[in-house]
């Protein structure tokens, strides 16, 4: 009976194919499963990520150091009202500047914009400057605080309700070379705008001193309550 022999051979073949199939299925599923992990990033993206994480962690370590010495000072000043008050004033000044409540001054860049500038272009520039480490931002005469967004039609933009007109500047305080470099690099926003918005002129000017005003907005929350 050759039928039995065929039966056995076919069974073995099918079994082998199914084992291989199962193996490949698992391998494939595993390689798909890690899609959102770091393994999926290219070397270039990984390098960018490591650089970002390094910079950020250095800043965070600095902040931890500051806070630790502040905690020691606060505890030491327990019996000394005057010292404690002076420390508080220094902290208040720094936090107010950081939040945008007080005006600030320092080295940075001025980005002069003219023409039918779309609101998205202003937001794009702000985002680039933030990613490059800007410490304080203003658009026209308006300090950029939480919730400040440029809006409206090109040529008639407003930010926080203030009209910007046809020519205005974005001002950033920070490392002037880093800030200017991020805007004018090949493939950066300046070259992108030249291609996308040919009628808009962008002039990036790194300077030793720029000033940004404090916000005129009240930043106290009206709906949320602090979780202490």
């Amino acid at each position: 009976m050759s039928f039995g022999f065929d039966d056995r051979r076919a069974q073995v073949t099918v079994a082998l194919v199914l084992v291989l199939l199962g193996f490949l299925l698992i391998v494939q599923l595993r390689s798909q499963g890690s899609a959102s992990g770091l393994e999926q990033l290219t070397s270039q993206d990984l390098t960018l990520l490591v650089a970002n994480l390094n910079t950020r962690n250095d800043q965070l370590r600095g902040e931890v150091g500051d806070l630790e010495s502040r905690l020691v000072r606060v505890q030491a000043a327990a019996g000394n009202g005057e010292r404690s008050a002076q420390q508080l004033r220094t902290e208040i000044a720094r936090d107010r500047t950081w939040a945008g409540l007080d005006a600030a001054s320092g080295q940075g860049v001025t980005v002069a914009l003219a023409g039918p500038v779309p609101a998205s272009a202003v937001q794009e520039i702000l985002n680039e400057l933030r990613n490059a480490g800007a410490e304080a931002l203003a658009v026209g005469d308006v300090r950029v605080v939480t919730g400040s967004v440029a809006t409206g039609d090109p040529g008639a933009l407003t930010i926080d309700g203030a009209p910007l007109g046809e020519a205005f500047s974005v001002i950033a305080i920070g490392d002037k070379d880093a800030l200017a470099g991020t805007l004018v690099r090949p493939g950066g926003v300046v070259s992108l705008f030249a291609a996308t918005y040919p009628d808009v002129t962008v002039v990036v000017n790194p300077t030793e001193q720029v000033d940004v005003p404090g916000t005129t907005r009240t930043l106290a929350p009206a709906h949320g309550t602090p979780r202490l």
Partner: protein
Amino acid sequence: MTRATARLGRVSTWSVTLGVALLALGFLIAAQVRTEVPRVRYTSLERVPLVETATGLKAQQVDLQARILDLGERIRASETTTQGSGAAARDLAAQLDAARLAGGLLALTGPGLVIQLEDPDGPVPSSGGPSDRRVSAGDLRALVEQLSLAGAEAIGVNTERIVPLSGFLDIGQAILVNSAYLVPPYQVVAIGPGDLYDRLTSSAGFQEWIRSRVQPYGLRVKYAEIPDAAVPAYAGTVRLRYARPIASPSTSASPPASASPSASASASPAPSAPPSEAP
């Protein structure tokens, strides 16, 4: 007739099973080979240490952020107990709290909205590149901007509080916000007025984002209006290396307008282009 039936029976048992299995095998091999191509290209010697470094740095970042929040709370607690009861001391403590609230350095709870953004699942249109078919830094930024315009007073994205200096950056399939590495699903939490959802969804900017990004590429967006939305505190540095305060810190009044540069003073060519729409 019986021979034909027996033959058919044999065909349907093994040949069909084998045929189907081989077809699946071929498909999987093809899929595997395609997955392997970029993998082989990038699995070079320098990549493995890079992944390990990035993983280590991510873990460090989480620890450092937790320490910053913890130290902030301990400092606050110490300051409250060592303040004394004088009116001047109470005033200073209130000023500090106000400054920290304004800067997003305190966590907030209030009525608001949770919006969850995810990459498409299932079949998506073949138009656009792969980067169009997933949630990008631009999408998160657009959503945060539209929420701000709709009146949100505090916004968080996953673990990160949105502050005046929060930047959004694409890295591969993930997004950096405040230089923190975030992966989907992205949860955008906003505190604001009771009609925040209505204001957001009726705004032209939001509708344009839905039309240009969500509808064509199948990004998944879910909303929930909740009475106790929780927005985290900013867990980062507030050190200023370049910016010096101008106004006196003890006054809460706005600085004089003369402190700000005039926009028209910065030399830029006179606008010669006629008004036109954005492309």
